[in-house]
């Protein structure tokens, strides 16, 4: 299997982390790279969206949201009763897996680009939409059976005006309003450099993930298995739905990847405020230390292979 070079940067970062190298991406750079990626993905989607019709998207959008909401509801009981995990942790992890990862999505986009496969521009709209509901469900799951007020105001604010949603949605609107022509002078920055920035970000992700793997190991095999099986199950849901909605091959892969991916930017921040009893090392460890590398190395190619197989039947 020929890996896309970007995922090799993750490997390099992970090696540096495991070898306790003095390589460190400064915090300011990490923040800047993530701001760039969120904006660029948003702008990209906005420009694509400007070329498509919006009304026919409403029903598929609802379907994508509904199935997306199933994921945390599926994950929670597994974690709670199969994994014997505390309620708060089960809810928080479920929220992480119901939400999405922009970087995993970006790797899948790069995967398609390398193969010259097109996809629907509104996938980025789905990305924005899918980020939030799982967080709300996770908070509700955590609250059930406990008392005391949940900091809803603060939490909803954290979610809606958190930088993830704000930059994705903001980029989407700017790209949409401006359209392809006016965006032209911004292309060298936000399109041409995209994959290079992604590579640098993955380097840092490798550094971080390597420290998380050690942490997640403490919590036993169950969580590791969950962090691998859950995304595959979610991806299958995505493939079936994409196929059912008549989406393109590329679009279906992206939907599968969205479902399969677990959040580690928006979800941790929101859960830390709304579900303080949940141990963040567990959820970030699973999503960043296991699921993220699984997805970019094996998951995306696997989901692609499954999608192709299904589409070859249907075609």
């Amino acid at each position, binding site marked *: 299997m020929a890996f896309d070079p970007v995922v090799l940067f993750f490997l390099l970062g992970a090696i540096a982390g495991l070898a306790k190298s003095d390589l460190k991406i400064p*915090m300011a750079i990490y923040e800047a790279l993530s701001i760039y990626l969120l904006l660029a993905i948003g702008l990209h989607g906005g420009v694509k969206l400007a070329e498509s019709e919006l009304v026919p998207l409403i029903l598929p959008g609802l379907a994508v949201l509904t199935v997306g909401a199933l994921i945390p509801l599926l994950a929670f009981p597994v974690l709670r009763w199969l994994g014997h995990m505390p309620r708060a942790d089960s809810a928080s992890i479920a929220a992480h897996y119901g939400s999405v990862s922009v970087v995993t999505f970006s790797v899948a986009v790069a995967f398609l680009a390398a193969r010259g496969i097109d996809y629907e521009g509104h996938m980025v709209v789905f990305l924005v939409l899918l980020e939030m509901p799982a967080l709300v469900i996770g908070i509700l799951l955590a609250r059930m059976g406990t008392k005391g007020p949940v900091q809803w105001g603060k939490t909803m604010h954290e979610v809606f005006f958190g930088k993830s949603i704000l930059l994705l949605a903001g980029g989407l609107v700017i790209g949409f309003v401006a359209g392809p022509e006016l965006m032209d002078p911004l292309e060298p920055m936000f399109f041409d450099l995209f994959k290079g920035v992604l590579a640098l970000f993955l380097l840092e992700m490798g550094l971080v993930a390597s420290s998380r793997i050690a942490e997640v190991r403490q919590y036993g095999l169950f969580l590791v298995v969950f962090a691998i099986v859950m995304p595959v199950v979610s991806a299958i849901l995505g493939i079936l739905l994409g196929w059912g909605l008549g989406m393109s091959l590329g679009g279906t892969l992206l939907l599968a990847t969205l479902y399969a991916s677990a959040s580690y930017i928006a979800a941790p921040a929101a859960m*830390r405020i709304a579900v303080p009893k949940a141990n963040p090392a567990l959820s970030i460890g699973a999503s960043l230390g296991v699921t993220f590398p699984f997805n970019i190395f094996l998951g995306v190619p696997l989901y692609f292979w499954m999608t192709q197989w299904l589409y070859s039947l249907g075609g």
Partner: protein
Amino acid sequence: MQSEQMLLLTVVAEAILEDILIDEVRRQGAAGYTVSDTRGWGKHGKRRGNWRQGGNIKLEVVGSPDLCDRIAKQFKEQYEADYGLLMFTSPVTLKN
């Protein structure tokens, strides 16, 4: 401010709490506060400071013993159980 013995209250906490803690400090009537970025390790594990919310902040307030006590008590009640938190005071002499 100068007549009474003043205290410096130092709070080390998870960076995500910055805005909440600051609001509380102002509500309690402090005349000011100072914040800086730190990293560290404690009961809640390692805080590497790789990215903003993976690090700690250090919040410092100079005030009367009573003010510092009130703030510390409030923080202890609300955040000690669930968040990384270290608080201590030390006597200082104001020079302005």
